[in-house]
C-alpha cells in the first residue's frame, strides 16, 4: 500500500458547521433552551450588574443624603427598602454598595486566581522537592484563621479597599493553589506535555501554552467561587467596621 496525496483522501472536507441561530438573539435562545438554570442565574447576575453599574442614575436619593425626620422607616413607596438610623435611603445605598462590593470581589478574585495559578502551576509542573517545599508552605499558611489574620493586618494598616484586596487575594490565592496544582498534575501526565518537551519547548512555554489552556475550566471555577466568598468576607469585615471605611456604602456596612 502506498501513500500519496491522491489515494489518501481519508476525510472529505465537510460543509462548515451551520449555526442554526446566528447572532446574539440565537445564542440566547439556545442558552435558555439547553441550560435553563444557567440562563436564570445569568439573568439575575446581569440585573445585579445593571443596577450596580447604573447605581448613580437609578438611586432615588443621594447615598449620604440624610433625612432626620424619616429615620428607621419601614419600606414604603418613597423609600423602597426603608431608611436607616440617620434617615438615609437604604435602597440607594444598596445600589451603590453593589458597586463597591462587586469591584472589590472581582479584583480580589482576579488577584487570588493569578496567585493560585502561578503557585499551583509551578508546584504541579516541577513536582519533586520544589513541590514539597511549596506545599508545606501552603499547609502552614492555611492553618491561619482567615478572619483573625485580616483583623490583625487591618488594625495595623487601617481599613481600606486596597488592604482587603491584597490580603484576601493572598489568603484565597495561596489556599486555592492546591486546586490548580491538582489540575496541573493530571494535565502534566498527558503525552502532549512530553511531546512539547520533545520538540524543545521550555517550561514557561509549556505551562503557558499547553497546561493553562487545559486547566482553564478549573481556573474559571476557582475564580467564580472566590467572588462569592470575597463578597461575604468583605461584608463581614465591613460589618465589624474593618472593611471599607464609613460612610461609603457596602453590603456589609449597612
Amino acid at each position, binding site marked *: 500500500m502506498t501513500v500519496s496525496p491522491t489515494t489518501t483522501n481519508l*476525510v472529505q472536507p465537510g460543509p462548515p458547521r451551520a449555526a442554526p441561530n446566528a447572532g446574539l438573539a440565537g445564542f440566547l435562545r439556545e442558552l435558555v433552551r439547553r441550560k435553563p438554570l444557567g440562563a436564570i442565574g445569568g439573568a439575575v447576575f446581569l440585573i445585579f450588574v445593571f443596577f450596580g453599574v447604573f447605581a448613580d442614575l437609578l438611586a432615588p436619593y443621594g447615598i449620604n443624603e440624610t433625612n432626620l425626620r424619616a429615620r428607621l422607616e419601614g419600606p414604603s413607596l418613597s423609600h423602597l427598602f426603608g431608611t436607616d438610623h440617620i434617615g438615609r435611603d437604604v435602597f440607594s445605598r444598596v445600589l451603590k454598595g453593589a458597586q463597591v462590593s462587586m469591584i472589590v470581589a472581582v479584583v480580589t478574585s482576579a488577584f487570588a486566581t493569578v496567585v493560585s495559578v502561578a503557585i499551583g502551576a509551578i508546584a504541579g509542573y516541577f*513536582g519533586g522537592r520544589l513541590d514539597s517545599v511549596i506545599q508545606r508552605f501552603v499547609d502552614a499558611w492555611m492553618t491561619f484563621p482567615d478572619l483573625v489574620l485580616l483583623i490583625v493586618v487591618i488594625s495595623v494598616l487601617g481599613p481600606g479597599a486596597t488592604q482587603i484586596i491584597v490580603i484576601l487575594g493572598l489568603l484565597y490565592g495561596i489556599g486555592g493553589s492546591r486546586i490548580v496544582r491538582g489540575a496541573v498534575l493530571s494535565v502534566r501526565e498527558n503525552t502532549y506535555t512530553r511531546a*512539547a518537551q520533545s520538540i524543545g519547548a521550555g517550561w514557561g512555554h509549556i505551562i503557558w*501554552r499547553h497546561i493553562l489552556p487545559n486547566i482553564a475550566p478549573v481556573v474559571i471555577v476557582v475564580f467564580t467561587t472566590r467572588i462569592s466568598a470575597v463578597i461575604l468576607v468583605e461584608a463581614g469585615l465591613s460589618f465589624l467596621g474593618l472593611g471599607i471605611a464609613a460612610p461609603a456604602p457596602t453590603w456589609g456596612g449597612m
Partner: protein
Amino acid sequence: MSTLLRVEDLSIAFGEAPDDVRVVESVTFDVARGETLAIVGESGSGKSVTALSILGLLGHGGSIVDGSICFGGVDLHTLDEAAVRRIRGNEISMIFQEPMTSLNPALTIGKQVAEPIRIHRGVSWKEALEEAAQLLERVSIPDPRQRLKDYPHQFSGGMRQRVMIAMALACSPALIIADEPTTALDVTVQAQVLNLLKTLTREMNSALVLITHDLGVVAQYADKVAVMYAGGIVETATAQELYRNPKHPYTLGLMASIPGASVNPRSRLKAIDGSPPDVANLPDGCPFAPRCQFAHEGCTAFRPPLRAVGGGGHMMACVGYD
C-alpha cells in the same frame, strides 16, 4: 555510512541508589543517517525508557547511571538543559505512541505543527503556519490550509499520527525516534503511516529509531534490529540476518510464535512459557534462563554479555550454545 547516534553501555535506574531499580542494563547500539534501527521487545523490556533517555526526558526518578549517548560526536548526557532543548525537535525529534493524547486538545493543529518551527527558527507566526501547511501536505493531509484551523478532536487517529509526524519533521531532524507509532492504529492505517515515515526519513536522509513489539513491522521497515529483554539487548543483527538466522533462544521463541500462512488454523499458537521477569527482582544470571528451553546450570552464573556470532555485526547475549 557514518554513525549518527551511538548509545554505549547505557544503564538507567529508577529510584534512589542503592535500592534503585535498573530498568535498562548495559544497552549498546548505533544508528547511521539513512538507516532504520528497530528496537523490539515486549512491554516492560525497557525500550521506551531507552528512547526517552536519548532526549533526556526520563522524568522524575529516572536517571542514567552509566554509559553514554553520543549524538553527532557529542555526549547528550553531559549537556545542560538549554543545550539539550536546542537539540530536541530540531536535530532529534520523537513520535509518541498514543496519537489520541499526544496532541494538545486546546490548540489548533496549525499552532501545534508550527510550534517547533517557531521555537527553533524564531520565524513569524505567519511564516511558521505557512510551513506547517506545507508539512501537512507532505504527510498527505487533504486540504491542509483549511485543516490548520481545526482542533485535534476533528482528526482521526491515523491523521493525528500524521500530524505528529509532520511536527517531528518540521525542522528536518537528523534523527527521528518513533516509539510504537502505530500501536494504537488499525492495520491498514498502520501501513500507511509507516510507509510515510519511511519515505520521508529517506528523503531527508535521517536516521530512524523505530520502537515496536511487532516483528512484522520490523521485517518490513528496519535495516537493523535490536531485540530487548528485561532491560538488556539479547540479540542484534541486520533485519535480514535476524529473520534468516535467529540465534538467541528468546528471538527463536518470538519467531516461532508468529502466526504464518502455513500454520494450521486449528492448532494453538506457540508461545514462550512463563512471563517476563520483574525488573526489580531479576533472577541471577541470564534473565531469560527461567523461561528458556535450553537453560542449564551455567546460565545462572552471570548475565551473559553480547558476543559476536557469525559475521556482519550479528551479536547475541547467551552462553547456552554456539
